[in-house]
């Protein structure tokens, strides 16, 4: 998927994160979901469920272990959308 696709997904995920109390200004694509955005395991799972509904994809748990930053997350969503 193109950079445009990446940017669109990033914008949508940032909107979702705002609903989790993270202001869009403080969210950098290199931010780590756990260490920087302070999402615990339960919040990460909630975020994944929201992303799944938003993009009509299913996100295997196996893929979560390699995701550390917001950028990793968006790239994985791109991959699932294209799969």
């Amino acid at each position: 998927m193109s950079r445009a696709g990446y940017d669109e997904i990033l914008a949508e995920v940032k909107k979702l994160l705002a609903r989790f109390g993270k202001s869009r200004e403080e969210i950098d694509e290199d931010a780590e979901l756990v260490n920087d955005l302070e999402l615990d395991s339960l919040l990460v799972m909630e975020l994944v469920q929201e992303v799944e509904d938003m993009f009509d994809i299913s996100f295997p748990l196996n893929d979560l272990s390699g995701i550390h930053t917001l950028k990793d997350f968006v790239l994985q969503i791109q991959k699932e959308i294209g799969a």
Partner: protein
Amino acid sequence: MGLFDKFKSIAVEREALMDQLGILPFNVEIEEILTPTTARISGREVLLAGTNNYLGLTFDPRCIEAACSATRAEGTGTTGSRMANGTFAGHLALERELAEFYSCTKAIVFSTGFVANLGVISTLTGPGDVLLIDSDSHASIYDGCRMSGADIIRFRHNNPADLEKRLRRLGDRANNTLIIIEGIYSMLGDRAPLAEIVELKKNYSASLMVDEAHSLGVLGHKGQGLVEEADCLEDVDFIVGTFSKSLGAIGGFCVSNHPELDLVRYATRSYLFTASPSPATVASVRQALRILASGLDLRERLWQNARHLYDGLAQLGFTLGPEPTPVVAVYMESKEATLFGWKKLLEQGVYVNLVLPPAAPEGKSLLRCSVSAVHTHEQINHIIKAFSAMSADISL
């Protein structure tokens, strides 16, 4: 970073709990077990209101005698795996009896319920397959899924519409999908909407496994579990369960009408490389299964007690799990209130399970109670009274 650095946070948490409660809630010593519903803890007798001894069979004289006789006749252990020297006549007899109990053709007995899930899930599925599991699944299901190498996808708890979305997204891969649910969920005590899930499984040509750990002996006229209550036994591909709850011992099983289950045993590492259940365990489980199968009176008493406790706590204003079953989950407002409440109950002689995030769903904290068929009416009243006093203390 050293090997042990990751345990530092646990050490800090443990110290804080000890300072706050004066006892470690996740390592409580049962100094003496007195009856199926009472024990001595910290020098005093307490009422057990958090065990999984649903039918109260742990002290049944017939089960004890069966275990003692088997020990005298066959020794204390098999000292080998099922594949090597650990398949005695009793293990095979128990497999035949389980198959007969469920009207299935095949059964495998495992050493624990945990390894039954670990083994069956990780052997049935592999890379390229899909596991669709309820988000509130037990740790043994999650671990079995991880070991399989299959894609693991969660669906929202007890939500067939969410499950259907995920089946639809899979397309042709639904054929290679195993859906896993539980008869009664261990934390909230709610039942799975099995009939709806069976319809989806059929529509998408997937396979279905039901873990009856907390529902065997609890649901259904014969006590087979949710598969019987929902009249879906023939539509479920695999039933797994444990001997450590209603059957009052330890061990696990899987039954199925798929003839291939018999082949699964030769490829399941948690069956091949662990010692088989002891003769005492097998003998007491066989006896307990006979009692369970004929024990409608026990199930009636269990459900009377379950409704008594659920209604009593609801009347006190507690927020409870979604439906009355023998697992009665009490939602607490905060972790602090849960810890305080747990200790207050123990001080009043009632021992319940403390459940803190992430063990409880949705990040909640719970006081998890469970009832037994052998709790007396007075004992259930005692539990309700203790909750009432605890609630008053929290409000002060």
